[in-house]
């Protein structure tokens, strides 16, 4: 198991190196540099010379690449990185912690439920580890220990790339996690009901809608939501239900607590739903297929034959086994959600990593482009490994070799 994880990590690192090299060389090959615009002005010559020197643009390409690579993995402040703080960045840790805790607690609960683990030591560890994560997180937040990698400065002159990315990461997390939760909470029950009532009207409608969702680009979904559920809804009924730009209102800080929650939700629903729609379609299709497969199995016929109530057969015998394959699907869907976030954030003016990426690409801001691509690549590599491990944990038939 450990050997398997290590091997996968090595492959992951190779993938990331290849990714960085390809993107780097493509950027170099495209010729046009960030200084092109300045070159139009003859008086800018000394500035250009200075910036070329400062950013190392006059060096050979491979040397530039290795400089970039060395910087990419080097902490800015080695002394602080020597501590325990390597994992948590300069991110608003207070913002990340609840999410981390929820994810870990949820994963533990699902794991224990599906793997039928009931040993007391395991329950103790489970309960303890949630507290453990909280304490570490609070301690990090309080002690203000910061850590950052030297990802360089943005070519757009808006500060360090690391700060920009992790400043935006919170917004993307909020959007992505909400979309994922929506997709799970809607998609899985939808698939289960479709499987239970196979070939019914509900099943047919669900299948057709899934196909339509699959066949629609996410930007059309997002623009459609904006137009129908925000703009025209307000125009026709006078009800302003959802907002279509940003994460919060400008006057957010003056609102009361409940009003603040309402404000956040009304900003969050439309972009999250736009991202979630395609995932809802794929989860429900997948869940339906997996449920149908289980329902035609021998052990389910046994359960029915011995006279168990239908509810118990479905919930206890069928559902538990039918949920296993979807774990992999969800972990692999992270790439899709990130892709959806890139487009949706640009449409809804959501200040996340996706919008930062598009802005950086438009402004030929290479350090930011490289850093965002690599961050997303790292996230996907990790999620792929997690998916494989989780699948093996949930399904004892899977073996690692």
């Amino acid at each position, binding site marked *: 198991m450990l050997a398997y994880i290590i091997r996968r990590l090595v*492959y*992951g690192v*190779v*993938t990331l190196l*290849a*990714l960085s090299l390809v*993107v780097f060389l*493509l*950027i170099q*090959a*495209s*010729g*046009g540099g960030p200084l092109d615009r300045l070159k139009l002005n003859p008086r800018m010559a000394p500035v250009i010379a200075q910036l070329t020197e400062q950013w190392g643009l006059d060096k050979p390409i491979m040397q530039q690449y290795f400089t970039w690579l060395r910087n990419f993995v080097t902490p800015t402040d080695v002394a602080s990185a020597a501590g325990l703080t390597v994992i948590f960045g300069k991110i608003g840790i207070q913002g990340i912690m609840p999410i981390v805790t929820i994810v870990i607690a949820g994963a533990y609960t699902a794991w224990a439920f599906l793997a039928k683990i009931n040993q007391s030591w395991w329950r103790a560890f489970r309960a303890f580890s949630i507290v453990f994560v909280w304490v570490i997180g609070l301690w990090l937040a309080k002690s203000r220990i910061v850590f950052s990698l030297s990802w360089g400065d943005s070519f757009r002159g808006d500060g360090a790339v690391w700060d920009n990315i992790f400043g935006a990461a919170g917004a993307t997390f909020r959007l992505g996690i909400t979309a994922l939760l929506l997709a799970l909470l809607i998609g899985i029950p939808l698939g289960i009901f479709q499987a239970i009532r196979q*070939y019914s009207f509900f099943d047919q409608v669900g299948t057709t809608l899934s*196909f*339509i969702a*699959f*066949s*629609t*680009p*996410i*930007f*059309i979904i997002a*623009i459609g939501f*904006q*137009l129908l559920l925000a*703009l025209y809804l307000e125009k026709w009924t006078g009800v302003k239900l959802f907002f279509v730009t940003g994460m919060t209102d400008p006057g957010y800080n003056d609102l009361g607590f409940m009003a603040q929650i309402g404000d956040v939700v009304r900003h969050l629903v439309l972009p999250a739903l736009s991202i979630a729609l395609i995932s809802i379609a794929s989860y429900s299709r997948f869940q339906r297929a997996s449920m149908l497969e289980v329902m035609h199995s021998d052990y389910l016929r046994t359960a029915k034959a011995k006279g168990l109530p239908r509810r118990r057969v479905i919930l206890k015998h069928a559902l538990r086994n039918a949920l296993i394959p979807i774990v992999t699907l969800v972990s692999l869907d992270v*790439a899709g959600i*990130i*892709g959806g976030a*890139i*487009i949706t954030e*640009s449409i809804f003016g959501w200040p996340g990593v996706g919008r930062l*990426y*598009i802005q950086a*690409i438009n402004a030929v801001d290479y350090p930011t*482009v490289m850093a*965002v*691509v690599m961050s*997303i*690549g790292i996230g*996907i*590599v990790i999620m*792929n490994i997690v998916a494989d491990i989780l699948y093996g944990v949930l399904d004892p038939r899977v073996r690692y070799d």
Partner: protein
Amino acid sequence: MTDLLNRPEGGPNDDAEGMAVEPITQWDLFIARLRRHRLAMISTIFLFVIIIVSFIIGPLLSCDKGAVECDFPQLWDYTDGLRDDNDRLLVNIAPRTEIPFGTDELGRDVLARVVRGGQASLTVGFVTGLLVASIGTVVGALAGYYPGIVDQALMRFTDLILGLPLLPVAIVVGRLLPELTFLPDWMQSGPWGIAFLLGFLLWGGLARIVRAEFLSLREKEFVEAARAAGASDRRIIFRHILPNAMSPIIVQTTLIIGAAIIIEAALSFLGFGVRPPTPTWGGMAAEGGGVAVRGFWWELVFAGSALVSTVLAVNFIGDGLRDALDPTQTIERK
């Protein structure tokens, strides 16, 4: 032909001994199963119409600016805006009888551009599908047939491709494509460059599927027999194993065609897909989305519907093929 699947034993075609004289081939069964899938049949016809309109009628009716002399009415010029009698641009005109789909923000006829835009979108879809099918099949077949070092090397490479974050990479490469001067002109702009980009990013899944098929098929008795009869590796791979592995390849390729059209639309929306003035459905829907806020809904609706219905048709065909190519499936579907 009409009801091969339900043909009773001892039918009208049988001879005196009750033996069937007319053999039912796999192909007959495939066609019979496909005809059962009504949506797939309708989708096939629809897609056929769309292809004819985009690739034959579109280029015939509309004329490129600067090309040979144009005898066609101005209505069908998709590069230039329409003008009224006083030579003013007819900007954002709502659909009416002479201009059934209205005009866009530059006064161009939306109908002409929708007809013309299918060409780029479909080219991206089909070229990507072709590339994915060929790369994925060759890589998967070699990896599945030759275990050991070939398999290892090819599969690690496949893992690498599958590990790439699709959309971010497509965006950055799509952005840089016109500036990559070492590429030939036809790849720098227009649908072919995007199709090659997507083709090289999307073949990983198919390669894995083909490899799995080959791994199981190469142990079968008929392959053993072919090998004993002295068939060469190439003959075994292409004549004996590949035909038996065709169904997942066809189904997966169909799905890739739909996905490629959608990804191209997303790239066009961000401005990194097929560059204007070449119209694509994705780019038009994006433009239409911009003006729809001001109430000019038609470009978004017409271009969007063309895009969604075409991809939907492709996906329905894929679904129908999946059912029809599955020999274990009998007559369960209603």
